[in-house]
């Protein structure tokens, strides 16, 4: 159980400044939970840390990250980890509360992540476009999305070099299994800056308006493991189906019905396989690059595996 010893040493290092505790004691607590009570290691570690926090009467945030490990943004996949990031501040957002000093988006070559800096942490201000090495930041998770929090123990070092920032591009390969409502020929609110789709000729913000036609698809692309929601804008829709906005308008005009457009699109794309690449916005992927997977997939290596297992 050398893994436990490592955890014990990490935890000990975090607390050695605050409480009088030896490694063996930490390890014993971890062992009781993991070995005797079958608690998963991460949960055990969390629980032991909480115990010492209480004993020392300090907040989790005040703990020095004994094992703040340098990670890339894409590697952040669990909450409550002490990490070190080298990242560029892409943009600052308006804090919604007085307790937040700064909030915004950090990026590195592997992706982007939200950060929060608390007012009480008393840290220097970060500037948009600056590249920083941030030691002792804590990861957090909310509804499946990760963020990092700067705290009183965070060490901020401004770097001279620039840093390339990657986006959260998703690549999906799967079958198009459904088209959702609101696909096909739609009308949008004509007010500048308003992109609402009209429902029965009404914009939720501007009321009854003369809408402007647009073409889009909200589709579900499913690979048998996850169902992904994908949005195709007018250009991507035309690339996918060969059907452009003007032609779609004519079709709807001839039929005196806009739903013929969605029907025509679903006839052309449902049940087929696609490779889709594009940025992620909330639960949607925006289709930037679409390729139909027309050729047969390679079956030979799979057959060898099927015969051998």
């Amino acid at each position: 159980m050398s893994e436990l010893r490592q955890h014990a040493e990490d935890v000990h290092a975090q607390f050695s400044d605050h409480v009088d505790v030896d490694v063996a004691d930490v390890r014993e607590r971890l062992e009781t939970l993991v070995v005797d009570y079958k608690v998963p290691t991460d949960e055990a570690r969390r629980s032991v840390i909480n115990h010492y926090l209480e004993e020392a009467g300090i907040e989790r945030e005040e703990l020095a990250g004994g094992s703040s490990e340098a990670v890339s943004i894409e590697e952040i996949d669990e909450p409550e980890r002490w990490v070190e990031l080298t990242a560029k501040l892409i943009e600052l957002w308006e804090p919604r509360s007085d307790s937040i000093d700064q909030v915004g988006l950090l990026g590195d070559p592997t992706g982007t992540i939200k950060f929060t800096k608390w007012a009480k942490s008393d840290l220097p201000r970060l500037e948009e476009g600056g590249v920083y090495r941030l030691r002792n930041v804590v990861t957090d998770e909310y509804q499946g999305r990760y963020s990092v929090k700067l705290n009183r123990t965070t060490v901020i070092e401004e770097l001279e070099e620039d840093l390339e920032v990657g986006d959260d591009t998703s690549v999906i390969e799967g079958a198009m299994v459904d088209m959702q409502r609101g696909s096909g020929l739609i009308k949008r609110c004509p007010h500048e800056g308003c992109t609402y789709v009209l429902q029965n000729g009404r914009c939720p913000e501007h009321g009854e308006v003369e809408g402007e036609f647009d073409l889009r698809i909200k589709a579900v692309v499913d690979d048998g493991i996850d169902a992904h929601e994908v949005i195709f804008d007018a250009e991507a829709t035309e690339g996918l189906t060969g059907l452009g906005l003007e032609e779609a308008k004519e079709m709807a005009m001839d039929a005196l019905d806009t739903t013929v457009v969605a029907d025509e699109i679903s006839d052309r794309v449902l049940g087929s396989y696609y490779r889709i690449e594009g940025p992620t916005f909330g639960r949607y992927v925006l289709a930037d690059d679409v390729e139909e997977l027309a050729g047969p997939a390679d079956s030979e290596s799979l057959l060898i595996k099927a015969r051998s297992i």
Partner: protein
Amino acid sequence: MSSNELTREVARRVFAAEFNDATYTFKESDDERAPNYALLPTGERANRVFFVGTLTETEDVGEDNEYWRGRVVDPTGTFFVYAGQYQPEAAAALRDAEAPSYVAVVGKPRTYEPEDGRINVSVRPETIAVVDEATRDRWVVETAERTLDRIEAFREWELEADAPEGATTVPSNEYAAMARERYDSPVENYRRSVVQALEGLEEPTATA
């Protein structure tokens, strides 16, 4: 899992031979609207499936109302697809379809018990689309891959569950455990279906 109510159920990939053995259905909660799952014998739950095969026959088997049955054949067996007045688009697709043709079907597993005490598994389609041969071949390969993944996970679980000291350290594979409890047929059968399906792809199509 309450968060699951908001997420769309994934469409599982399963060959007809395995699908037709998925006679046990269950819900994860007592909520009336909780989704229904068919238990796949290789140890997975399926609320929705996606398959591509050859539509060989369609027939209106309804009495007062139209009720269409389609037979969709894959390399391992036949999916039975039923669409009536509550699935107007799928029913129209079956009515208008020409057999034989390749179709891609998205639908929900359903079971019914005819009088002989057996349980039949069928599909209530959400969409039926005519596709080409390349799409069908791609589905066969994809389904083979997903099925092998399930078989491997099942066997791993089985090995550890059966190990003498294994009782406490078994990684959970809830649906593998459920499948072993509910079904008699060994997963080996489904490995053979996979081999059979892939071998079918290797055969050269008739040369002139």
